[in-house]
């Protein structure tokens, strides 16, 4: 356990003493803020139009949850698909390249502790990233009345999605000593998880539901709507556990290959 904490400390420190953390956080919040601003101004335009031309009844159907928060969550999830492999690419690849991997693996530390430490550090970083976007719903709560429960469910979905991507990104980083290969293969893997459900409509009765179940988007979309389903929770938990297990095997493989 002590080793896990030591690794977390070292990893978080390396995010924040280098420009990495600040560039990623700034970029993420900049794009997030732009989306939020656009969605909000579109919402306000629609509201004006609806009240002017169709009276109050149509305007009542507009609500902040469906027209601002849900699309915002989906937009943020796309940015995460791209950014997370870039956050995790260095985790193992850089250690291998710079020779510090030898230090870590010749120390009396279990590979599981190393893998867990690196995962938790990236997880905490992603929590900070997503936590900072919390200002958007807070602004909405201050000036409007969106449903809080739905927002919380959406944020849980966003966090689970990001955590799964972190686990997958770390896995691809453990395969290589080249950071670009780690990032690209991480991006391909996370993007594939994101879009694997697309052909579900036409894939038939067996394959269709399977593809839909494998897709991150499917479970995420439910949560954004406010539906927290055990199926979804089990899905994310298994995806994270599988990726961590494979990472542990990948690191350990050096010892028996």
């Amino acid at each position, binding site marked *: 356990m*002590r*080793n896990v904490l*030591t*690794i977390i*400390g*070292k990893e978080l*420190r*390396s995010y924040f*003493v*280098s420009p990495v953390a600040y560039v990623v956080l700034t970029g993420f919040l900049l794009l997030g803020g732009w989306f939020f601003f656009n969605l909000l101004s579109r919402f306000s335009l629609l509201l004006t139009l609806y009240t002017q031309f169709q009276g109050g009844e149509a305007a009542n159907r507009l609500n902040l949850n469906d027209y601002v928060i849900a699309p915002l969550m989906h937009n943020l999830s796309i940015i995460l698909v791209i950014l997370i492999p870039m956050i995790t690419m260095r985790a193992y690849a850089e250690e291998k390249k*710079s*020779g*510090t*991997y*030898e*230090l*870590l*693996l*010749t*120390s*009396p*530390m279990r590979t599981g502790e190393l893998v867990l430490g690196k995962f938790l550090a990236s997880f905490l970083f992603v929590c900070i990233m997503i936590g900072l976007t919390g200002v958007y719903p807070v602004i909405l709560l201050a000036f409007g009345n969106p449903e809080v429960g739905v927002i919380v469910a959406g944020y849980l979905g966003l966090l689970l999605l990001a955590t799964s991507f972190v686990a997958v990104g770390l896995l691809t980083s453990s395969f290589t000593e080249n950071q670009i290969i780690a990032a690209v293969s991480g991006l391909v893997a996370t993007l594939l998880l994101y879009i694997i459900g697309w052909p579900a409509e036409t894939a038939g009765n067996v394959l269709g539901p399977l593809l839909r179940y494998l897709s991150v988007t499917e479970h995420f979309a439910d949560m954004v709507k406010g539906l927290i389903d055990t199926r979804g929770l089990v899905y994310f938990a298994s995806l994270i556990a599988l990726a961590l297990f494979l990472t542990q095997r990948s690191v350990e493989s*050096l*010892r*028996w*290959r």
Partner: protein
Amino acid sequence: MIEVQHLTKRYGDLTAVSDISFSVASGQILGFLGPNGSGKTTTMRIVTGFLPATSGTVKVAGFDIFDDSFEVRRRIGYLPESPPLYNDMTVTAYLRFVARIKGMPRAEIADALDRVLTRCGLTTVADRVTGHLSKGFRQRVGLAQAIIHNPAVLVLDEPTIGLDPQQIIEIRALIKELAGTHTVILSTHILPEVAQVCEKVVIINAGRVVMEDLLANLTQEQTLEDVFLRVIAQEEPHNGQLQGEVEETAG
């Protein structure tokens, strides 16, 4: 203290190390010599538990490197060919991190840190970021990292490379001081270094041990240089070039 028996390491079809055996007694300093690409680094990586062997056994302090890897790693300090530094950490933060992952009790870390900083001549750069240090200082931080947890066994892969003459003398004196209380495997190209520091010499060529003896016996009639050139010439490396490539990809 260290017993290497019939160690073989193959990378696919290439044999980097072939059936090598040698031993180091407790408190002894072993000079591990050989031309570039002869399998020195591979052997050291196996002894430290970083790489698995294809066949053969290594025992450190009575523990098998494969079965009791954890116990072995607890007792070894290792300086790889290039010092394993995190370029964005300060020297102090880095050494503190190493002390922790080597399993030192928290209470002892501060003292150990002061000790190695003084011993390796790092007090003036203690708060500098390792990425900004000169090669000589980086090498010394690497050495400090290897000895901070006061391990019984030290494996040093070319520790004096890139140092200026003054620093080389200091580091050699430091390694000599470790004799008696620590068992050291020291790989190097610099023959006078071996003559000054080591008690025992193992020479490997093309992945095989071609000489294992005490320094005193070897240098009775010839200089170490003559001995080295003679045993290397005896066995012409038939696949020396391939060996070199293996070393490179492994590094």
